[in-house]
């Protein structure tokens, strides 16, 4: 997969693809020769990055600039020489599996964790040398909620407002405004512990807005929320960005969320940025290749059919969506034919086959060689238990 890896470093330069003319930004170390793949046509080529390093103080209208950021925990490298920037007013997504280093990057940018190496500026201030300046301009919605259960919503907001030195009158007005924004006025004087998870998260998000931050950090903002609350929070994120022009950087491991919300996405794996572009451009990485995704509906789906498809050399992954639906990723021009042949041979009753548009999930798989979530194993486990008759019987026999 390494040939597809686009590593972004301090130097970012625009290059024009000699084949299709698509212009894209590529990054790397100064003077580094990088093998890149055009996100538009899939053409591979070598580029050489220039030598000059732009001064970290020049923000170029960037809300966040990161260069060679590195974080080690003992021998473990959580963040490995990461460099990228976030433009003012955009929603930027850091996408990657759990443990990829997303939260560590956020923590370093929020001055909660000191980088082992490299530097970063947030709102034009250095995160190490000018930490308290940085803190004035940011809001943080962490993975764990920053709220006190025994305090009411208003008391929580009041506490943090006072830590930001907001004058009393302005703060009272601001708190009412924020509560109205998330339609929580009625619950303002109730204790947090009486709230549902969705309500808590709404307060948690507006708590980070109390100081009217230029940059809002959201670390997995929809983790553990029900679908309705998830939609509400996503809508809130969009409103915060569009109404106030707040720059937002969010982390997520949900591809759909990043696709839906973010203007640009950095895909991160094992502490490295493996690709960074607009979602539409990222998906072009896939369309340029011969990987395709099929959704197949089989009325008599059974483990034998599944294992026969899985054993095909062209099939890269197999996901069982429910009792009749399969999601198959395969490469090669004849992938479709071989799959259909195999299905026929095993007596599968195929109701429908759909060639799906490439998703970010495909991009991620293509770039890292694995799923963002371990969806394959998850589904295999669940199908053993809750699957249909023959499958279950066979599984239990195997156990004995």
């Amino acid at each position, binding site marked *: 997969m390494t040939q597809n890896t686009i590593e972004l470093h301090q130097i970012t330069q625009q290059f024009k693809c000699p084949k299709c003319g698509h212009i894209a930004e590529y990054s790397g170390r100064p003077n580094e020769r990088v093998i890149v793949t055009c996100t538009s046509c899939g053409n591979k080529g070598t580029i050489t990055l220039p030598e000059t390093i732009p001064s970290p103080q020049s923000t170029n209208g960037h809300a966040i600039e990161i260069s060679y950021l590195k974080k080690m925990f003992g021998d473990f490298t959580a963040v490995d020489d990461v460099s990228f920037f976030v433009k003012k007013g955009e929603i930027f997504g850091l996408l990657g599996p759990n443990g990829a280093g997303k939260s560590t990057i956020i*923590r370093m940018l*929020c*001055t*909660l*964790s*000191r980088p082992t190496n490299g530097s970063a500026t947030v709102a034009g201030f250095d995160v190490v040398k000018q930490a*308290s*300046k940085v*803190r*004035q301009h*940011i809001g*943080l919605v*962490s*993975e*764990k*909620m*920053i*709220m*006190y259960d*025994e*305090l009411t919503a208003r*008391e929580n907001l009041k*506490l*943090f407002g*006072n*830590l*930001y*030195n907001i004058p009393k009158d302005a703060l009272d007005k601001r708190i009412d405004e924020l509560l109205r924004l998330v339609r929580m006025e009625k619950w303002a004087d109730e*204790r947090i512990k009486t709230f549902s998870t969705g309500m808590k998260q709404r307060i948690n998000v507006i*708590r980070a807005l109390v*100081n009217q931050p230029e940059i809002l950090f959201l670390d997995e903002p929809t983790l553990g929320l029900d679908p309705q609350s998830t939609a509400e929070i996503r809508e809130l994120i969009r409103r915060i960005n569009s109404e106030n022009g707040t720059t937002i950087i969010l982390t997520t491991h949900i591809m759909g969320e990043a696709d839906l919300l973010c203007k640009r996405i950095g895909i991160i794996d094992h502490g490295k940025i493996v690709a960074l572009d607009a979602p539409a451009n990222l998906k072009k990485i896939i369309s340029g290749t011969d990987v395709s995704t099929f959704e197949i509906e089989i009325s008599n789906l059974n483990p034998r059919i599944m294992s026969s498809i899985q054993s095909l050399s062209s099939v890269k992954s197999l996901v069982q969506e429910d009792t009749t639906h399969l999601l198959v990723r395969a490469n090669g021009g004849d992938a479709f034919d071989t799959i259909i042949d195999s299905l026929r041979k095993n007596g599968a009753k195929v109701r429908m086959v759909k060639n799906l548009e490439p998703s970010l999930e495909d991009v991620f798989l293509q770039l890292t060689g694995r799923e963002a979530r371990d969806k394959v194993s998850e589904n295999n486990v669940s199908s053993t238990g809750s699957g249909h008759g023959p499958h279950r019987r066979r599984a239990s026999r195997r156990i004995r």
Partner: protein
Amino acid sequence: MAAKDVLRHSIWICWKDLLEFSRSKMRLVMLVLMPLFMMVMIGFIFPSSSSISNTPIALANNDPGSLGTGFVQQLEIINNQTGMMKLITATNFNDIKTKLQNSEVNGGIIIPENFSSNILAGKQGEIIVVIDQSNPQMSLTIESVLSKTVAMMGEQMAIHNLNVTYQVSMTRASSMITPYSVQFKGIIPGEPSYFQFVAPGIIAMVVMMALMTGLPHAISYEKDMGTLDGMLAAPISRLSIILGKVMAQTIRGMIQGFIILLLAVVLFGVVIEGSILLVIALVILTVFSFVGLGILITSFADKEETATMVMMTFMFPMMFLSGVFFPIQQMPWYMQDLAHILPLTYATTALRKVMVLGADVSAVGTEILILIGFGVILLAVAVPMFRRAMSR
């Protein structure tokens, strides 16, 4: 950052902590119950000489002569006045031994067969006191009470004999038999009581516990919950966080300290001899001397669980070595040396001097200086450690 801001932020954090605390009914109940239990427990489990009353003592009179019977009669007269013993008749040593083993008695008195004959022959009459080696505290008390009683009886007998045999006046006779007499006089009125001794120590200890357990707990709990990140990401000094927490814990510890003081005065009749303002000042100084230690433990312990373990390891030796429950003068020299490196020792000593003996500032000057020294040194080490731990 301006000192005013640091203070203002810390007051808000303190406000938050106290508000959180006051919302939890269970914690409020414990705030009052803990010192109450402590006081009642410590006040009553340790024996004092006055706790000897109606103690069952076996009495075996093996003397066939009349002097043994006379001794028993006299002993009964004295005991009727003091009510210390409940005399139970026994036959001999073995009988007393069985009774001791069965816990029927706590000790025994044997008047041997040759008691009368020895005295009549001009020798000393011997009395045997049987003690229970499994209960050294009780044995010690019985030993001293009985030997005092027997000595007193002997004196009276001697005075009586002089008076009757040689017609010496009673006063003269007693000055001949016991030429020296002792009078005990405390520097403050009243009898010494264990509560008097232990109350100042417990106040110092509760304040210490509030900081040593409360502070690491308060911070590592917020760290575990993730709420600490909210404060760390806000443009406030690290000092504000620790200061706010210290204030909240100090107020909590002081409230408990005052509950103890109140209980000691109202329920246990402890009299505060010194100035109450000096007592308050000393309690605040105790807080100051422990703050650094609390912060240090907080910085080292990354999780709540670790914090609790580290704190326990330090707290128990401090509690028992600092003379809160037993005077350090009773300890072997090496333990005394160890006690002298613990700030709690000085806090306890100073509080005791002021509360019990009515000492003024000049009398506790050394302790005050040492406590300030402990506070300054520990803070000088702890604050940089805390700052480092917070930006890991």
